[in-house]
């Protein structure tokens, strides 16, 4: 499964402050949700979101990579889905930092196994297909 979500965000801050915002449990609680995250490889944590009628809100994770202040990666599992989230920080100079997010995986969800070339591009074309 090669559905890959890639997003970029620019912030007016320092790379150290951004690193702290994505790794410090108290700060994470302010922009994601209540959690017991620790930036230690192998640490297992939960993001506990407000449940809804179709989602229990619990995301289970395990820290995979801690490369301060450049890269943080963790597994991100909810329901039957097992994803990997990788955050890459890049100092753009001028007091700006880029945060690049990649969410990949889906290796054992919905019977999609292995890298299926073109799935992601295809997903982007879905709106046109649905319009017919």
């Amino acid at each position: 499964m090669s559905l890959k979500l890639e997003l970029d965000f620019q912030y007016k801050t320092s790379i150290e402050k951004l690193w702290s915002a994505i790794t410090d449990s108290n700060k994470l609680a302010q922009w994601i949700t209540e959690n017991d995250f620790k930036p230690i490889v192998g640490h297992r944590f939960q993001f506990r979101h407000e449940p809804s009628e179709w989602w229990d809100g619990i995301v289970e994770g395990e820290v995979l990579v801690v490369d301060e202040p450049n890269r943080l990666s963790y597994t991100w599992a909810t329901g039957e889905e097992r994803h990997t989230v990788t955050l890459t920080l890049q100092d753009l100079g001028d007091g700006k930092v880029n945060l690049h997010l990649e969410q990949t995986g889906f290796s054992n969800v919905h019977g999609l196994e292995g890298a299926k070339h073109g799935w992601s591009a295809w997903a982007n074309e879905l709106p046109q297909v649905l319009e017919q």
Partner: protein
Amino acid sequence: MNEYSPSRDVFDAIADPTRRHLIHLLAEADEMPLYELTAQFHMGRTAVSKHLTVLKEADLVRDRKVGRETRFRLNAAPLREVQDWVVFYSKYWNTNMLRLGQLLEEDEE
């Protein structure tokens, strides 16, 4: 009212590039007979038929007999599930990252 209950997961059905291509072909036409669909692939009729059967099991394709030929048409509704799923994660992060931006701004002040 959908009285049809698919026996196959939509994600499973679209996991194969040939089936995704079939969906695109059918998206551009109202209805297509099997021989026209087969003409688009370097594979035999049987192989294309098998893929169409998988799509039918996921209710992505419906067919009907017209005289001696079988015609296929797309039923795109189940694809919404796929789209919603992709959109869900985009929305999740975009919303959170907006909050992160606000948090960092407060930090600067």
